[in-house]
């Protein structure tokens, strides 16, 4: 028996990292929003590693924050160790990573959701979506059905089911239906989505065992401490001080590998039970031993799962081998001889969509106002999920209001790279962001995410006034200081003794401070000695000033490339374009374009099977159409 339980603007199915950002974004944009989770203990659950950030991923978190999302703020509240990676390399790949207190991360996020105006968070299992005819032959989502028979009406729905959808866990020879971490899976919803015509496929991921800290011997491992100076994730935080915990490094050895090899036949992975495709960048230990047979050792990090628990995450050692084998190989590793496993490693398989079925605003092509985000779209990782969640939430709101979608392009954000890759190129494995996926890496730095995105987010009504004002103040401060450095000149007599001390060549003539700062061996902090009268600057502005001046030339070069890229990106293609009508397109291009329905000529150019000649044909055709329309209008006026 079904019954109406409520009406909302936006309903988000799933309250993981994608769901949380989607729900918060929608509510913050003023939409009456409902978030549903099979189990409220799963809100912002970190089902795998206890850390946020890293290369590329850290960039995503910064961007989420710059847009007014929650991930950065939440990890700043709950991290127990923080490190800036890659500092020996250039600013484009500096990447922030923090170890999280998992329990607190979940609790803080849940508190934020509960406190959020316009947002209801409820426990319950959605089993179907309801659609209606749009009138033009197409369908539109208009509600959802719960397991209990309850129906919620909605103007837009976001699917963020993570690994819950028809989740299946594998440990050795055993396999059973389950969501992550022993939670109930969502099975009916998958069946019903198929009934609505959605094609689902299977992906796979895995997680290592958790062990008790007291059973480990840390003396036999290398300690890895957090940074002394903590750089916050959120642009809302200037400086953070916190007691930090350590992580620990140790290595596998030949004995470990021998145990694993001996038991290959008992792994679900090689036994053929797993049909899902797993990611190459996150292989299980048996996969590593199998594929890299000549590698003598593999490293693993022991990472604390939180402050209030003794559970430790064994990074680098995910597995689908049986528990007895797991214990045996873990114990062959230095420091892990007495290890007690509290949660075994497992592989999990789940249903997801082919992201090529999505538009650039993450809306499902065949049912309007149905948006998709996170692992459901074939990505992997908390950060990738959160980024899509935010964009799906924003676009759900914009589509309800009949406004232009909010799409970031590849030159604007890693979020743009991530989504464009997914919806234009598709993926054959859970997709992970990498800095090398970005063409304009020198522009998409983690330090300038706010300069790239905060204004735009404010304009669409997501970033709030206080964040925006804060950003403007920082902008003003940065610009003023850069201007001053470019104008202030120093004389050889003033600075040569200091330069000599730094091992920097002496000046022959006077030079501006900005010019000096361009020298590789000099940084902004050092300049204080030469420039004692300067005003103190916030940490963010200091980084901006330094990077903008130091790398001015390179940044300028990429900006020129971006200009060229944008030219095709801004040539919009009509959504209902009949490619069959366009003479000169090759058949393959016609089919591909018809299937993908790219929004711009730029996007079309990235579709495999569309050649440069096809792009030229499209450009000419567009111009023809434009003039045709103009002529028509001219005719009407006469």
């Amino acid at each position, binding site marked *: 028996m079904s019954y109406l339980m409520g009406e909302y603007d936006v309903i988000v199915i799933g309250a993981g990292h994608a769901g949380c950002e989607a729900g918060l974004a929608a509510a913050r944009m003023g939409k009456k929003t409902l978030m549903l989770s099979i189990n409220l203990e799963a809100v912002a659950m970190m089902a795998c590693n206890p850390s946020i950030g890293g290369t590329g991923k850290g960039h995503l978190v910064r961007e989420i924050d710059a847009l007014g999302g929650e991930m950065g703020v939440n990890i700043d509240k709950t991290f127990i160790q923080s490190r800036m990676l890659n500092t020996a390399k250039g*600013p484009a790949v500096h990447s922030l990573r923090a170890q999280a207190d998992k329990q607190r991360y979940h609790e803080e996020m849940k508190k934020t959701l509960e406190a959020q105006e316009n947002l209801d968070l409820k426990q319950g299992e959605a089993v179907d979506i309801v659609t209606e005819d749009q009138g033009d032959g197409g369908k539109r989502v208009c509600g959802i059905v719960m397991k209990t028979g309850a129906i919620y009406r909605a103007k837009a729905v976001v699917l963020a089911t993570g690994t819950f959808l028809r989740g299946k866990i594998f440990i050795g020879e055993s396999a059973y239906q389950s969501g992550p971490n022993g939670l109930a899976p969502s099975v009916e919803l998958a069946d019903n989505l198929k009934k609505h015509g959605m094609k689902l496929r299977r992906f796979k991921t895995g997680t290592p065992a958790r062990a008790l800290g007291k059973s480990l011997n840390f003396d036999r491992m290398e300690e890895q401490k957090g940074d002394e100076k903590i750089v916050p994730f959120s642009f809302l935080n200037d400086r953070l001080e916190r007691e930090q915990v350590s992580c620990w490094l140790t290595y596998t050895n030949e004995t470990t590998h021998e145990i694993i090899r001996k038991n290959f036949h008992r792994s679900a992975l090689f036994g053929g039970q797993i049909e899902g495709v797993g990611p190459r960048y996150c292989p299980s230990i048996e996969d590593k031993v199998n594929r890299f047979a000549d590698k003598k050792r593999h490293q693993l990090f022991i990472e604390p799962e939180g402050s209030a628990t003794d559970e430790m995450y064994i990074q680098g050692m995910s597995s689908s081998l049986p528990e007895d084998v797991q214990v045996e190989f873990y114990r062959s590793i230095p420091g892990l001889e007495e290890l007690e496993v509290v949660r075994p490693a497992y592989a999990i398989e789940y249903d997801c969509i082919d992201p090529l079925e999505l538009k650039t605003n993450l809306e499902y092509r065949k049912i309007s106002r149905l948006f998709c985000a996170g692992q459901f779209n074939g990505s992997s990782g908390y950060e990738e999920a959160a980024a899509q969640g935010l964009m799906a939430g924003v676009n759900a709101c914009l589509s309800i209001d009949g406004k232009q979608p909010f799409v970031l392009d590849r030159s604007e954000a890693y979020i743009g790279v991530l989504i464009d890759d997914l919806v234009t190129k598709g993926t054959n494995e859970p997709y992970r962001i990498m800095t090398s996926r970005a063409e304009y890496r020198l522009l998409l730095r983690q330090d300038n995410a706010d300069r790239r995105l905060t204004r735009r987010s404010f304009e669409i009504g997501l970033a709030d006034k206080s964040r925006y004002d804060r950003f403007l103040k920082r902008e003003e401060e940065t610009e003023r200081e850069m201007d001053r450095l470019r104008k202030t000149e120093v004389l050889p007599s003033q600075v040569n003794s200091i330069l000599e001390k730094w091992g920097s060549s002496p000046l022959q003539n006077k030079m501006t401070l900005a010019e000096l700062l361009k020298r590789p061996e000099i940084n902004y902090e050092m300049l204080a000695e030469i420039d004692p009268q300067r005003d103190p600057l916030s940490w963010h502005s200091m980084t901006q000033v330094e990077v903008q001046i130091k790398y001015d030339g390179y940044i300028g070069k990429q900006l020129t490339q971006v200009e060229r890229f944008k030219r095709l990106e801004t040539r919009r293609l009509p959504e209902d374009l009949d490619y069959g009508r366009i003479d000169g397109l090759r058949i393959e291009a016609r089919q591909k374009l018809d299937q993908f329905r790219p929004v711009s000529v730029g996007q079309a150019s990235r579709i495999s099977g569309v050649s440069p000649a096809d792009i030229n044909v499209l*450009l000419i055709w567009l*111009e023809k159409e434009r003039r045709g329309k103009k002529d028509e209008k001219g005719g009407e006026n006469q």
Partner: protein
Amino acid sequence: MEDTIAAIATAYGEGGIGIVRVSGPKARSVLESIFISVRRHRTEGEGQRERFFLPEATGETINEPIVNRRLTYGNVVDPRDGSLVDEAMAVFMKAPYTYTAEDVAEIQCHGSVVSLRRVLSLCLENGARLAEPGEFTKRAFLNGRLDLSQAEAVIDVVRAKTDQGFDVALGQMEGSLSREIRELRNDLMDLLVLVTVNLDYPDEDIEEINYEKLDESLSQIDDKLQALIAGAGTGRMIREGLAVTIAGRPNVGKSSLMNALLRESRAIVTDVPGTTRDTIEEGLSISGIPVRLTDTAGIRRTEDRVEQIGIEKSKEAVNRADLILFMVSGNEGFTPEDLEIIPYLDEKKTVVLLNKIDLGSVLTEEMILEKMPGAAVIETSMKEGHGMDLLQEKIRDMVFGGQAAQRESMIVTNVRHEELIRRASEEIHCAQLMSSSREALDFIEVNIRQAFDDLGEIIGETANDQIINEVFSRFCLGK
């Protein structure tokens, strides 16, 4: 704002005049950087042949501002060293009343492939990029210069030209050049994979890259690129035209041959600047094949210092020739001078022209082959125009092995390849510079990646995920 494009606008090897067209916002500045107007004093007739211009131009160069739509006489010069490249007429036409509705500059220079390509290269080095096939037409249409009714025709033209451009690029990529480029690209890939894994996986237990290693790899890659640019064999032949040298003692009929060839091809082209009176180099087209023809001063012993220099140059010209046309006089037989020249000639690339056959011959093919067993022999009479067809056929065979020529597209793609290789080389130089001053790895990566992409474009490989796929197949990464 569109960028600025340049291309050769006239057909190859036909007509005495060729046009290099530049279109886009930088058209004016491109023209200004390579063209200097000249106010010249007219000097009449120079030697027996009608000379197009004097190599050392008699006239004063003046920096007249370029006037819209005024055809101006002057010199094309290489701004790097001020050297004269060609004399030319140039015109600048301001947007929007031009073919493309953009600023357009046109340089009318000598129609030889050599000359046109040098002028085009200069444009590319000074702010323009090579136009894609059909791009001028495309722009003309997109900018509203062509009528709507012409849209279909434009699509056809652009479609055909683009396809041809890319297909030929692929079709041509057989043999040693493509192999070399693939090898180079593999080297670049090895380096990129290592750089990428270092940038994206800082915490992994993997081989670290350091600047010494980077310097070393870059310098090896640079060596290979330089070798590629220097090129040899067909590569150079197509790039610069077949180097044909006419050898033989004075008065044997070399000038007549040269004039005959020039007349035949109806493409008087140019005296390439910088040549002296000792060797005269002409660019022309024989059966559509770009040819660089050198007339030597004749090789013989001399005490005269000036002539001595000329002879050295002749030897040089003979040495670097792809094809040597060695002229002997049939009615006089081998003279001591002829016999002195023979040892300098590489028989395998020599065609002996048994000339003045109309006067009766004391020399036979057998006698010639006795002296030069590897050479080919053709009987000619410059006076009666006899044997020229055979000679042209011979030259054609040298280039295409008798197969039909796909000359135009071949040359077009070649300019493209050359530009891409040059660009890749610039990127690698830039990377080397940055590596030696220890700039950040992520900045250097941009240049290496660009070089990788440029080379990929030549062989039609632009797969973006190639690097990432390699990273995962070579390194064991992940949680």
